């Protein structure tokens, strides 16, 4: 879209954002300025989406001679209205950067330097390596005779930054090769939120969207730091606060979010279950005394509160020493965690609508959380009692009909061995307060990267194909398409997209079958153990981001080969260099460095945390010979097809029959259309997942994306700034999956007859014959007519207070982090009973390592800092690795602000600059003083600003649900350096 500035100004003024920002400008233009000369640089015309966090701010690029000369916020975007944060404002320096890689490079075994090469040779060599490793290790049939068609010898990690179309092709290529170790950053970022919210309400992502935060009456940020990690989202928090919304922040650290909160509670790391458990207990007690203050119809009708549970079910409240019934010493048998059946009741489930039966979920919940008294909460969390009580009252007030509260959280709620259960407490609270589905409500688990959601949902995690849960990759025993039941149409349509005319029963077995846990931590263990010999890294930097990153550094040295596709020579790329503390001559790993184009240099769609897909256009030409991921994948697949042509064994058909006609260079629009899907009889693009057929007559690469690229065009590219909803849905801006629905579970925002609980902020309403407003979450008439309940992804349509599907218990229970200076004050069960460990190094004990530590990120640096530590504007503001510590601890250790200090854990030791602050305080728990420090994880040994990585200290522990590591709460010690 090439527009001149005048057109752009008109375009801006036409939009709401444009009016806001440029309305006041129009008057000035009439002024005759005394010294006026033409601008030496343009402001910007071509639009893109900022590549950093999950907010998805739109930006405008000025392009001259194929170079970007200016980038600033896009005033038309209803999300960011022209603003950006400091990272977004620094994008110019990504596009114009001396550190960018411009040519493919190779490093041979034992070599001390790179050798420059060209794309033809680099791709030919990489394809040969892939084929060699694959064919030498490929398993077609396992010992039980199951077709498995997989190799565990090649792994792929990354990413969350490519466009969705690139991630889709990446996934398609990797699966066709039979690769099963496929992971990205989502695993170690917020995977626990997906598991938890899936259990509670049916879907993982943020249930509403950024702008909707302005509709909240109270926003509780817990286990997240929205002002720093998602700065522009704070626009909507600020707008809400300006009109009287209360902002609560619960966090171990007083951050830039706390600075703008009405109520701030400091909690010891790893104790959010106790804190929120206490709020749940308050709400349940208050419901008894003041039922009129709550929407009891919602609780009774839209949740499983009235469902009766097996009378043999027991939990920690029944003196089981912190455990639930079914414990066999190493894991749970969950047969007692089940609903009582009753053939005379609908859904064959016994229910008590009065919520008084002692076996109903509501009463079991009361019993479970009754132990989370104010005093117990204070004892465990170290929080201030009166602040806690005020937070209980303030947040519980959102339970009234017509009131809405949002729980906003991110990685810090998730990155712990209790991550999933922590997020479960948020969901339980939101269901009890009738905050799901309504405007200003929601479970807002924020993904950390711009396309974290978009990439992960293309199947860049081992347990999803494109389209997530319902099209999971088959396991070893799933030998037939019929295993997919009601989801069969989604899978067969995917198979038709990938294998065209091949019968889907045949192509189903082209797919590799999973035979174990292939998630992040086992993946690196497999490298360490020599099982995995080749690794492909797409714009990901595990040497900085992974738990116990020193172990990852060592594991990489055991690889036969590694291919890194990145903008820069990252820490992961340079693991063999002296900068990493390595001796190159002793490392025989062959390294491919393939220079990638940045998002500003390519075209495609990205999906923000709130599920909005937005299209980005190419601005600059990539530097030198850098290429987009799309181009690289295309070239690699075409080469592999060439290598496998004529071969019959080793499931070669999966590669040779793979549909792959995107042109050269590949056309991103063809990929987007393949994802959307076609009616194969007519050749027309589908319009909705409802069109999918299980008879092989439809193709669809990703059913969630079905509807984004239809006969009416590219929906993600839409830029309509009007909002007919009056609650900020902006349905014509981009396209939200599923079906352009902006607020999920919105059928819970209305009563049984379809009338909104909140007349002033209706999301949808039944007008007697149809729904008006947002796209309804399920098109059936209201519940009273259809008996279709609002949480349609759950089997009974109800939100689940009781979560029998989790391996660590149906209700959240407080356990201590793996490394903790304190005993569990709630029960004798110290840790999550089904905690996962891949750690081979020691566990820190509180005598040697008495200080609790967490890691964090900040406004100025993103993730491993691979990008931001190479931009002088950001490095100027945050130049060095640092550690935040309290004044009390500083005094004890003789440390002053700006001193270099050494921090040690049982895994390693790092150096950092001391930031001594009143914002961190020691916790006084039961007469014990617990000191607490915080470390950013954004540094590494390459780049403009170098420093030690906080992850040298963290441990390879995991939540049993997703294996997410425990970055938020581990033990260390420190002294002056």
């Amino acid at each position, binding site marked *: 879209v090439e527009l001149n*500035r005048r057109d752009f*100004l008109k375009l801006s003024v036409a939009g709401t954002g444009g009016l806001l920002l*440029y309305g*006041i*400008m129009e008057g*000035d*233009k009439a*002024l005759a*300025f005394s*010294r*006026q*000369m033409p*601008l*030496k*640089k343009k*402001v910007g015309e071509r639009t893109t989406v900022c590549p950093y966090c999950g907010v998805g701010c739109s930006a405008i690029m000025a392009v001259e001679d194929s170079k970007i000369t*200016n*980038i*600033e*916020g896009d*005033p038309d975007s209803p999300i*960011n209205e022209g*603003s*950006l*944060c*400091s990272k977004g*404002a*620094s994008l*110019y320096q990504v596009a114009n950067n001396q550190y960018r890689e411009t040519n493919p490079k190779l490093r041979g075994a034992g070599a001390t330097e790179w050798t420059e090469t060209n794309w033809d040779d680099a791709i030919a060599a990489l394809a040969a390596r892939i084929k060699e490793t694959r064919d030498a290790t490929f398993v077609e049939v396992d010992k039980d005779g199951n077709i498995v068609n997989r190799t565990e010898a090649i792994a792929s990690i990354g990413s969350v930054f490519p466009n969705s179309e690139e991630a889709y092709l990446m996934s398609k290529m990797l699966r066709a090769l039979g690769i099963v170790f496929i992971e990205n950053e989502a695993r170690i970022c917020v995977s626990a939120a997906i598991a938890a919210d899936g259990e509670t309400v049916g879907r993982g992502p943020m249930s509403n969207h950024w702008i909707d935060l302005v509709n909240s009456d109270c926003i509780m940020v817990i286990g997240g730091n929205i002002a720093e990690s998602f*700065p522009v989202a*704070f*626009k909507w928090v*600020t707008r809400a606060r300006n009109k009287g919304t209360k902002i609560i922040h619960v966090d171990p650290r*007083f951050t*830039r979010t*706390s*600075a703008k909160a009405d109520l*701030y509670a400091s909690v010891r790391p790893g104790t959010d279950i106790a804190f929120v458990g206490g709020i749940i207990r308050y709400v349940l007690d208050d419901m008894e005394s003041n039922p009129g203050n709550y929407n009891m119809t919602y609780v009774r009708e839209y949740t499983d509160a009235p469902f009766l549970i097996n009378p043999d079910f027991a939990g920690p409240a029944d003196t089981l020493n912190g455990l639930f019934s079914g414990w066999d010493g190493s894991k749970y048998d969950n047969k007692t965690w089940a609903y009582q059946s009753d053939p005379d009741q609908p859904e064959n489930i016994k229910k008590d609508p009065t919520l008084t039966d002692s076996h109903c979920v509501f009463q079991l919940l009361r019993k479970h959380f009754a132990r989370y008294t104010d005093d117990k909460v204070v004892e465990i969390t170290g929080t201030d009692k009166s602040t806690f009580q005020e937070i209980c009252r303030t947040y519980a007030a959102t339970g009234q009909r017509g009131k809405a509260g949002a729980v906003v959280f991110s990685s810090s709620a998730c990155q712990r061995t209790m991550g999933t259960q922590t997020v479960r407490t948020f969901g339980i609270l939101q269901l009890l307060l009738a905050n799901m589905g309504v405007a200003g409500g929601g479970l807002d688990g924020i993904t950390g990267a711009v396309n974290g959601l978009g990439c992960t949902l293309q199947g860049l995690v081992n347990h999803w194909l494109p389209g997530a849960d319902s099209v999971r990759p088959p396991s070893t025993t799933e030998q037939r398409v019929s295993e997919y039941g009601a989801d069969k149409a989604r899978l067969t349509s995917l198979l038709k997209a990938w294998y065209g005319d091949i019968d889907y029963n045949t192509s189903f077995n082209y797919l590799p079958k999973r035979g174990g846990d292939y998630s992040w931590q086992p993946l690196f263990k497999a490298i360490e153990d020599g099982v995995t010999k080749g690794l492909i890294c797409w714009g990901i930097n595990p040497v900085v981001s992974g738990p116990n990153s020193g172990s990852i550094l060592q594991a990489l040295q055991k690889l036969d080969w590694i291919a890194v596709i990145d903008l820069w020579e990252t820490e992961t790329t340079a693991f063999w260099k002296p900068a990493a503390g390595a001796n190159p001559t002793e490392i025989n790993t062959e390294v491919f460095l393939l220079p990638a184009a940045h998002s500003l240099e390519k075209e495609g769609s990205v999906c923000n945390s709130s599920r909005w897909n937005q299209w980005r256009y190419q601005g600059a030409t990539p530097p030198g010979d850098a290429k987009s991921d799309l181009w690289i994948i295309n070239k690699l697949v075409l080469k592999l097809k060439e290598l496998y042509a004529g071969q019959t064994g080793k499931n070669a058909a999966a590669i040779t029959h793979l549909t792959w006609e995107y042109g050269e260079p590949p056309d991103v629009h063809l990929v987007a259309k393949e994802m959307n899907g076609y009616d194969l009889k007519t050749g027309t693009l589908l319009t909705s997942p409802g069109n999918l057929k299980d008879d092989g007559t439809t193709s669809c690469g990703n059913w969630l994306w079905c509807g984004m690229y239809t006969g009416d065009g590219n929906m993600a590219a839409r830029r309509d700034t009007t909002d007919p909803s009056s609650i900020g849905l902006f349905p014509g801006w981009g396209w939200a999956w599923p079906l352009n629905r902006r607020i999920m579970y919105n059928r819970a925002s209305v009563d049984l007859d379809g009338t909104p609980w909140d007349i002033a902020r209706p999301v949808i309403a039944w007008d007697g014959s149809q729904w008006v407003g947002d796209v309804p979450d399920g098109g059936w008439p209201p519940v009273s007519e259809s008996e279709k309940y609002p949480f349609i992804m759950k089997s009974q349509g109800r939100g689940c207070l009781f979560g029998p599907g989790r391996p660590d218990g149906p209700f959240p229970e407080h356990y201590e982090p793996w490394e903790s200076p304190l005993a569990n004050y709630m029960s004798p069960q110290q840790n999550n009973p089904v905690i996962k460990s891949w750690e081979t190094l020691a566990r820190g004990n509180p005598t040697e390592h008495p200080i609790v530590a967490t890691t964090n990120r900040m*406004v*100025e640096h993103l993730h491993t800092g691979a990008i931001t530590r190479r*931009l*002088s*504007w*950001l*490095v*100027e*503001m945050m*130049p*060095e690795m*640092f550690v935040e510590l309290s004044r009390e601890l500083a005094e004890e250790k003789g440390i002053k*602000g*700006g*001193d270099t200090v050494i921090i040690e854990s049982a895994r390693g030791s790092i150096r950092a*600059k*001391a*930031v*001594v*602050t*009143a*914002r961190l305080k020691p916790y006084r728990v039961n007469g014990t003083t617990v000191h607490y420090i915080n470390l950013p994880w954004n540094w590494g040994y390459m780049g403009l600003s170098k420093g030690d990585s906080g992850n040298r200290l963290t441990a390879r522990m995991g939540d049993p649900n997703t294996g997410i590591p425990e970055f938020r709460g581990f033990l260390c010690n420190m002294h002056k350096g």
Partner: protein
Amino acid sequence: MAKAILYDSTLCTACRACQVACKQWNNNDGVETVNLGSYENPPELTPETWLKIEFREVEREGKVGWLFNRRACMHCTEAVCVRVCPTGALTHHELGFVTYDKDLCSGCGYCVDFCPFNVPRSDRNLITGLAKMDKCTFCTTPGFDRLSAGYEPACVKSCPTDALKYGDRDELVVEARQRVQVLKTEGHTNAYLYGEEELGGLHVMYVLDDSPEVYGLPVHPEVPAAAIAWQDVIQPLGWAVGGLALIGLGLNYLVARKAKMTRELPDKKEKSNATRS
């Protein structure tokens, strides 16, 4: 109609988009810094950093607070820099603020020395005296004049939380007064609108939830007497006797020496009980 920027510190999250957006639009490089035990950096304004956000930790009523403040040219109505500038490089724009034409700057450094807010920055060679001053130009630098092209200043455009606003000064004063009133009713009894009256009215005004000294702002900024003498007496005299070059060079050295000492003693004009962190 005078224009102004309104900075509402109570809405600022210190994301520092403004600090970077200023550099991006004005083509200013990053400055090499070290961590001095604080989030704040660079420690002072520099010729390449015309705007920075300050971080202050306070304890009020037993609670920790983190206060953010914007530091850049205040665009005074009674602008000392305009008075002392011998070349006309610094002038009042017709919209009220102080604009700057670097091509006209002789590098004399008088503005650097006399600014009551310690804002202008100039790196000079101590022997030749050759230097150029730099400061915020309200995005009206010739060739990079956003205002006359119909755009807001870069810092205002970037701000995610509306902590920075650009508009008619009169209207912003009304809005800011209301905002201060709200803060007072919320219990911030020292809430203050800084810049409404100071130095004849600043064109960058501040909504503060506490008194100016808590934010490191001078409570009674003044035009130094020496500056009045310079413009009204010495400068015409200098022209008259034709000894400008000689006097200028001599003063140059003195001012340069003083400016150097100023840089070594940052914050000399700021008195604050708050910790910068």
